[in-house]
């Protein structure tokens, strides 16, 4: 059977033959996205919302079963809000703030994420990846029903890719046989094993961590608090190096055991053996049901370049991290947020093709930051030498009594979006304002008199005028700019704190992906025009 290498949790886009398959000449599409995982679907919705037609090809007819991402970060929820899927995610998800760290028999310390007030979305939710993907596909269907140019085709396996100066040609296999399509641009969102990468002969280098993690999702109505519990060297038979317990919706709990490198995979996956481990781990007599189990090894690696001519790589296809820190899907969604507006402008001939090079520059910068964090967490979890283990355990011992050692305990540094410091789309900072909103930063949310700031920054360029009157500009060279003027009661303390600091007033130019492009106390039309040109990769004269 074509496609179908894994079982489905939700059948969402069953195969249906389309006219393209019967055409004599390959039908042309502006953008084809390979892969209907979370990153492909998010990118497709974003493009379609902007009016650029997007066709998604996935080799299955729905969302795979099983236990992958569970932690989704605020930035992801903010982006999902813009795509029309955020509210469902937060409603279904489990919000958590407290984590506890144990070492051996005893508790080392607990921490509270202490999420900052005045954000629409929580710092994190836990939600099974199949739900996350389903809510995105639901949003895609709603966009489609509103007439937005989006289409997803199930059981369409991309088997060949070729590019020349003016197009990309894809060979596709379906249950009714093969066909061919062409596109101006292709986005490969086909996951960590990316067949597109292989077909193009591109490498994917990095580090493999020599460790195996048994992941078990179990269903139980247990009375544990909604907290993240992490054990180093838990006092269990067969001495796993670490264990994790974390709550998901539907009374499902994620349990992880770090098994070490030399294991008998088959034996470890035997449900009887898994039950034995879980029985020992949970309080005596806890009843539970195994929902999903698997063993993973993790790696940190990325492609050298995320852009190859007319083919862009996004999500796990471009970069892979270990899950400690939940930086996989969360960073992939930021790729999609970064790429969609750029590709939309390029396809409308409103920005030069070189704007797409900045997708690589900005997102490789993000990937490097994520890989660094993820590598450090993995080094703490799996000490690579006798001495690194001695230091690791020294940190854990000291952390019980001494506050200074607690920030060194690393069971994952949770995903936060990166700032595109020093990259070419930024205009140098001209405001003596808060560091967190300097050019390149993702806009932090803030409460207004009524509602939240990010809801008022939809996917286009926006001039955010805080207690100042900017010149009237509605477009630059065909690129629309909206103006959001905030005065009086809308300038809440939190908004002032995040965007003004000691400055009495400010003008921000904000990109469609809600990153700051430029900021000033105020600016004239020429200055704003230059900043917009810079932010869209146009040569400034």
């Amino acid at each position, binding site marked *: 059977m074509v496609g179908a290498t894994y079982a489905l949790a939700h059948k969402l886009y069953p195969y249906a033959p389309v006219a393209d398959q019967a055409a004599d000449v390959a039908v042309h599409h502006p953008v084809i996205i390979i892969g209907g995982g979370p990153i492909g679907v998010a990118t497709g919705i974003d493009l379609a919302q902007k009016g650029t037609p997007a066709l998604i090809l996935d080799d299955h007819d729905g969302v795979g079963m099983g236990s992958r991402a569970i932690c989704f970060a605020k930035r992801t929820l903010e982006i999902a809000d813009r795509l029309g899927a955020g509210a469902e995610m937060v409603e279904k998800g489990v919000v958590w703030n407290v984590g506890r760290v144990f070492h051996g028999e005893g508790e080392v310390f607990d921490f509270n994420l202490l999420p900052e007030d005045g954000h629409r979305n929580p710092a994190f939710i836990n939600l099974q990846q199949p739900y996350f993907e389903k809510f995105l596909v639901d949003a895609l269907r709603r966009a489609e029903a509103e007439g937005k140019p989006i289409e997803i085709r199930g059981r369409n396996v991309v088997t060949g890719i070729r590019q020349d100066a003016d197009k990309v040609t894809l060979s596709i296999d379906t249950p009714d046989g093969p066909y061919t399509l062409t596109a101006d641009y292709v986005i490969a969102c086909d996951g960590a094993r990316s067949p597109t990468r292989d077909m193009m002969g591109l490498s994917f280098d990095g580090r493999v961590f020599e460790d195996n993690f048994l992941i078990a999702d179990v269903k139980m109505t247990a009375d544990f608090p909604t907290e993240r519990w992490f054990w180093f060297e838990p006092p269990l038979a067969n001495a796993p190096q670490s264990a994790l317990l974390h709550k998901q919706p539907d009374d499902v709990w994620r349990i992880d055991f770090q098994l070490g490198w030399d294991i008998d995979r088959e034996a470890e996956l035997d449900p009887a053996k898994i039950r034995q481990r879980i029985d020992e781990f949970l309080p005596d007599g806890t009843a539970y049901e195994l929902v999903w189990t698997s063993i993973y090894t993790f790696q940190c690696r990325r492609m050298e370049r995320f852009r190859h001519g007319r083919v862009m790589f996004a999500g796990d296809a471009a970069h892979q991290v270990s899950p400690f820190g939940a930086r996989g899907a969360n960073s992939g969604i930021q790729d999609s947020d970064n790429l969609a507006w750029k590709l939309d402008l390029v396809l409308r001939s409103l920005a030069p093709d070189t704007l797409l090079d900045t997708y690589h520059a900005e997102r490789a910068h993000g990937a490097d930051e994520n890989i660094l964090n993820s590598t450090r967490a993995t080094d703490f979890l799996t000490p690579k030498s006798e001495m690194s283990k001695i230091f690791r355990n*020294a940190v854990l011992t000291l952390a019980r009594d001494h506050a200074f*050692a607690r920030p060194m305990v690393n069971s994952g540094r949770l995903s936060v979006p990166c700032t595109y410091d020093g990259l070419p789309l930024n205009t140098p900072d001209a405001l003596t304002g808060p560091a967190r909103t300097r050019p390149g930063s993702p806009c932090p949310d803030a409460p207004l008199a009524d509602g939240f700031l990010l809801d008022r920054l939809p996917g286009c360029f926006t001039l955010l005028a805080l207690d100042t009157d900017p010149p009237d500009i509605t477009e630059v060279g065909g690129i629309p700019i909206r103006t959001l003027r905030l005065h009086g009661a809308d300038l809440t303390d939190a908004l002032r704190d995040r965007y003004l600091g000691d400055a009495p007033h400010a003008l921000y130019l904000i990109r469609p992906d809600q990153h700051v492009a430029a900021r000033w106390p105020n600016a004239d039309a020429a200055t704003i025009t230059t900043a917009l040109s810079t932010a869209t990769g146009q040569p400034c004269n």
Partner: protein
Amino acid sequence: MQLNTQPNIPDPDGFYDELLAAHQGLTKDQSDALNARLILILANHIGDRDILREALKAAG
């Protein structure tokens, strides 16, 4: 500030005694663990990343 590598501990012989006394009766593993804790405690007290980097270099 710079890493001070000039004599700085009053009564150096007395300090050296105390350092050895802390390891008295410990196994090699226990001593290694104690040294690691001590390094972390002292490093935190110093705090200054430049000085710590100099110290790592001086020790290496």
